[in-house]
């Protein structure tokens, strides 16, 4: 469908309680998150309001519901718009109206009806120890739920650090064998949106891209969308200039901390954490509304092996320092060498001396000859 086919009528029909203007703003905003053009945003708007809303099954394992919470607090769009108009959230333990067998039945019905078409979202870790008995829903282990559902899903998205690699439940000694979805679903492409909690817009952007284009964003080795996790926090950090200038807060509340200096020395994990926090921010509360912006060092919540494992005060290991070429080499060429003028002058001086000497020598020779 060409951009021109989009009619005002469609928009009028659109959103429950959302004005046309706000709705378009949301769609183009999401497109921008993905690095797409405004026209793609309009396409998204169309897709979002089309009659057949894509069904979404949301499974919850070992989790704290923080990921759902963060979604609840996104304002563009609001959650009710998302789940009532944009998608068809057919199963979500926290948000579903039905409970117990009814909910389970609705889920199974949706899976059966939308086989190969629905999006599976996994929140929370999946315990696999002792055949996954440490997390059961409706008498079935989470492990089985995930495996069975994923087989029929069009796309699988793991939201949050727990679903991405195990998160908090997987920290040693990990008694339940908590595992991330990519580990359990080794033969499927699992988009991971790590973070504790993750940024809702990274999730929404991924979902809407899938709804609109039927494709998934480009992923890195850990299954994370590159548009959101392609760069280190350190690279876009608003305090980066202080790092480069060597201005560090040395302890909480000291002069440097109050001045907003770099938090690296307080243990900020920005230099080894891939996430778009400094550019996307959190909570829609305006500038500086992200951990480092508020004066707390980044804890590396999107990175396995850092958050929940490395002490918060421990120093980050710089993933990419400023490239080595940006430093003077051990031996830099310095000083002025031979210039043309100096060479000419040296030649002239030596020549004059040699010439003078030759003249004298010749004269002495002729004198000698004359005498002889």
């Amino acid at each position, binding site marked *: 469908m060409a951009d021109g086919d989009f009619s005002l009528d469609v928009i009028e029909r659109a959103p429950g309680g959302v004005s046309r203007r706000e709705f378009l703003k949301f769609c183009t905003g999401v497109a921008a998150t993905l690095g797409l053009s405004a026209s793609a945003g309009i396409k998204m708007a169309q897709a979002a309001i089309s009659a057949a809303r894509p069904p979404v099954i949301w499974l919850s394992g070992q989790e704290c519901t923080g990921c759902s919470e963060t979604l609840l607090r996104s304002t563009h769009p609001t959650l009710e718009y998302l789940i009532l108009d944009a998608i068809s959230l057919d199963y979500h333990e926290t948000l579903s109206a039905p409970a117990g067998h009814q909910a389970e039945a609705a889920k199974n019905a949706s899976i059966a009806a939308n086989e190969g078409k629905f999006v599976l979202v996994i929140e929370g870790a999946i315990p696999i120890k002792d055949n996954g008995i440490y997390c059961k829903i409706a008498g079935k282990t989470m492990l089985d739920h995930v495996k069975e559902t994923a087989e029929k899903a069009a796309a699988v998205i793991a939201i949050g650090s727990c679903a991405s690699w195990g998160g908090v439940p997987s920290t040693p000694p990990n008694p339940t064998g908590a595992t991330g979805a990519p580990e359990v679903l080794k033969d499927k492409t699992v988009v991971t949106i790590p973070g504790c909690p993750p940024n809702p817009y990274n999730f929404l952007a991924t979902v809407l891209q899938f709804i609109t284009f039927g494709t998934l964003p480009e992923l890195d080795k850990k299954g994370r969308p590159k548009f959101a996790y392609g760069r280190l926090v350190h690279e876009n950090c608003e305090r980066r200039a202080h790092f480069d200038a*060597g201005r560090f807060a040395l302890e909480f509340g000291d002069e440097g901390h109050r001045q907003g200096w770099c938090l690296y020395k307080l243990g900020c994990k920005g230099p080894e954490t891939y996430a778009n926090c400094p550019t996307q921010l959190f909570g829609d509360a305006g500038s500086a509304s992200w951990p480092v912006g508020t004066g707390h060092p980044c804890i590396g919540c999107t990175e396995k092996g850092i958050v929940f494992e490395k002490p918060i005060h421990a*120093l980050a290991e710089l993933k990419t*320092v400023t*490239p*080595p*070429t*940006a*430093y*003077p080499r051990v031996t830099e060429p*310095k000083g002025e060498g031979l210039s043309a003028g100096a060479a000419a002058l040296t030649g002239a001086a030596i020549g004059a001396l040699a010439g003078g000497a030759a003249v004298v020598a010749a004269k002495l020779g002729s004198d000698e000859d004359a005498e002889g």
Partner: protein
Amino acid sequence: MTMNRRDFLRVAVSGGALSVAGAPPAEAAREAKPMPPDAVGMLYDSTLCIGCKACVSACREANGLGPVNEANPGWNDGTWDTPLDLSAKTFNVIKAYRHGTMAKKDRKENGFAFVKRHCLHCVDPSCVSACPVSAMQKDPKTGIVSYDPDACIGCRYCVYSCPFNIPRFDYSAAYGKIGKCEFCRHLQVDGKTPACCDVCPTGASLFGRVDDLRAEAKRRLALKPGDVTTFPRGNLSGSRAFGKEGGEQAAKMQSPHDAPAGTYLNGLYGEKELGGTQVHYLSGVPFEKLGLPTDVPDRGYASVSEGIQHTLYKGMIAPVVLLGGLAALAFRATRDSDGEDKK
């Protein structure tokens, strides 16, 4: 040919004149100087350095030096504070060893490594021996090599003689002076830590008493590479530079951090080189790659130079004796020539 007493004396004295100035015995070096009793120093661990240059900017601030804008072909047009090397207005500098793809830090092949260059505060410093007017002095207790611009005549013999190429003269000023690291001695008076070590986020630059630093370096060298260990930051020996008083409290303030131990290729630089230095280096690449001379004797060149001078002059006794002999001969010669004139 007969030789009378006069002729003999003449030959003896002139021979003496030449031998006084002539080749001294090969072992003319004076005794090496010992480490001062309360020597303070630094330990720079290249494997810990992240190249943040905090030390460079802190040094500028602590010593009242302005930014230096040098064009670095290829990446900087001279707008940033980018000293290419030490200068009269840059007392420390972070440089990078680069090789091949520069893919990994602290690796010789296809890797890179940082090095922080500044005065090493030699135990037997050439600059102090070279300076004709005592403008360069080594503190007998702390061993800090300091510079006094009010005494300096600007002959730059210290620049010429330093085996580490450290003291720098300001050629751009009409009446320039030498600039070099003095361990922030103006801060130490107040019990503060030198700025570069105080600000270093990883403890790559660590200040402290030399014996403490050497023990810490030995500890690191004994570790298995990759084993997580605790690295102190700031001042290893407590905030008092001149003693261990209050060390424990200060050590608490300077929170250490845990990190995997680096792969130290070589031993500790600064223990023996040129009679030892008070700044020590640990690194993952060979020291000569970091610009530190390794093919050097275990004694300072000053001991050789001063040894020759002392052998030749023997406390000015030799020249005075020689002068006496010369004067006697000249006296006879002038008397003779007077006689000749009268003829």
